């Protein structure tokens, strides 16, 4: 893999994030707005919801919306991808650039949510080292969003369709894999939703109780499922998506 080429591609992806209004809003402003609104709404103890649960959920919200931006971006850039494929750039370099740039975005999102929540009264019980664990966890989880975005783009005929279909992956993760209350039946569904494990792991990190088997179980699930999803996404997109 040529790191010079990879660097150039990551640079373009990050510029897209900043300069493209939809990407800028969905990736950076939306998590910020969501954090402010949720922190105002749920910081009242009378509502019975712990801020310690809300903050991990907000991080999950931010990262799962990457599915939409990835799907939209791949669908609208199909002609550009065709053109890029006539250069010496390899598909591995291209996919790696997508993964790296989305991991960077996920870390920025985590930082935004955490900083705003902290400014609004959120106080994690973990040490700094413990909190730092949230970074690799979130970055690895971003792989699943890239993978699901690729799958969505593969089956979408245009960017609008990609945005719509992305909610098939976003909504279950929002409702079954965050701080929304679960019944005994929805708890079963939640076990099949990747965000459920990130939410749980982040909660353990912020509570300072991550040195246990539950955390490492979450971590193992997040890593293996995210890698699997991104591999499936790449395979499907390579075979059918760039047509």
């Amino acid at each position, binding site marked *: 893999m040529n790191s010079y080429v990879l660097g150039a591609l990551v640079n373009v992806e990050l510029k897209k994030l900043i300069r493209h209004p939809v990407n800028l809003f969905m990736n950076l402003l939306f998590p910020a707005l969501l954090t402010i609104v949720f922190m105002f709404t749920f910081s009242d103890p009378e509502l019975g919801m712990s801020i310690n649960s809300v903050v991990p959920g907000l991080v999950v919200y931010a990262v799962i919306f990457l599915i939409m931006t990835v799907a939209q971006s791949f669908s609208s850039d199909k002609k550009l991808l065709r053109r890029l494929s006539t*250069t010496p750039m390899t598909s591995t370099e291209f996919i790696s650039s997508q993964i790296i740039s989305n991991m960077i975005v996920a870390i920025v999102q985590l930082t935004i949510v955490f900083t705003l929540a902290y400014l609004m009264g959120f106080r994690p019980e973990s040490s700094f080292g413990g909190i730092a664990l949230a970074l690799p966890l979130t970055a690895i989880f971003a792989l699943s969003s890239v993978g699901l975005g690729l799958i969505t783009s593969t089956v979408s005929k245009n960017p609008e369709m990609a945005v719509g279909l992305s909610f098939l992956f976003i909504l279950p993760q929002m409702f079954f894999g965050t701080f929304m209350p679960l019944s005994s039946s929805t708890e079963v569904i939640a076990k099949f939703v990747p965000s459920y494990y990130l939410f749980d792991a982040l909660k353990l990190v912020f509570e300072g109780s991550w040195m246990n088997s539950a955390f490492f179980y979450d971590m193992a699930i997040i890593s293996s499922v995210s890698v699997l999803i991104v591999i499936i996404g790449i395979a499907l997109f390579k075979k059918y998506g760039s047509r």
Partner: protein
Amino acid sequence: MTSDIESMLKKLNRKELLELAHTKKINIPKNWSAQFIIELLSLNIEVEEIQKSKTKSTKIKEKTEMAPIIVIEDLQKKFENVTAIDGLNLEIRKGELFSLLGPNGAGKTTTLNILTGILQPTKGNAVIDGFDVAKNASEVKKIIGVCPQEATVYSFLNAKENIELFGKLHSLSRNQIEKRADIMLKLLGLTDASQRRAGGYSGGMLRKLNLIMALINDPKIAFLDEPTVGMDARARRNTWEFIGSLKGEDKTIVLTTHYIEEAEALSDRVGIIDYGKLIELGTPEELIEKYGVNNLEQVFLNITGRRIMEGL
């Protein structure tokens, strides 16, 4: 006297100019435009030296240009029930400007898409500079530049950033990219707009940027798919002059176009395809003579018009 020398020098192509400079022990940077070289040389040489050089260079050119750099054999491409290319056989010579002409849907773009590795052929093969396009695509991609029919640029990047990306994908240094980009932006009149985002460009400007991105790697072979379509007459003329100037850079240019008059003026040879088959091949002069008409457009209408009538 200097203007006489200059006018003689203007008749030489870039390779000939560089050879002349070499004999005078003048180092010419690769990125210098032909005009700069002419001005420098005109101060340094005598008329007879140009004539001597021209004779030598022409002999070398004739010898090397006969070798084919692109060989297409029995190429076929089917899309479900439609045969886009039907047993195409063609050789394109090194250093020539070859125009692929044909009516809409004749198979021109599909042919270019196969040659550039975007599409896989159903049958047959294409070899570029000794590399099979289907089997050694990575080697082929190092030596080609592709200007697609539709202007495909990143709208949120400015012209320089778009060009820089494509230069970097070919592993060119920032310095190399900047030098080459500056020259091409200037020649195509995009310098002033180079810091503006491509999303705000007019159609003509996008096409010019599209072309520069294809040529930033100084490719051995450039595939230009209707590079001037949608441009106004002035921009088109400017772009054709630019494409014409590439002929002197020892580059093989394969282009498709609907502007037959310009193809006639610029092309060394033209191939006319229809229904995915090569139906005529030769220099514009040869074809005009063969069909006993006044220009290439009449040749084109003669051939493709007859085919249309046969189809009715």
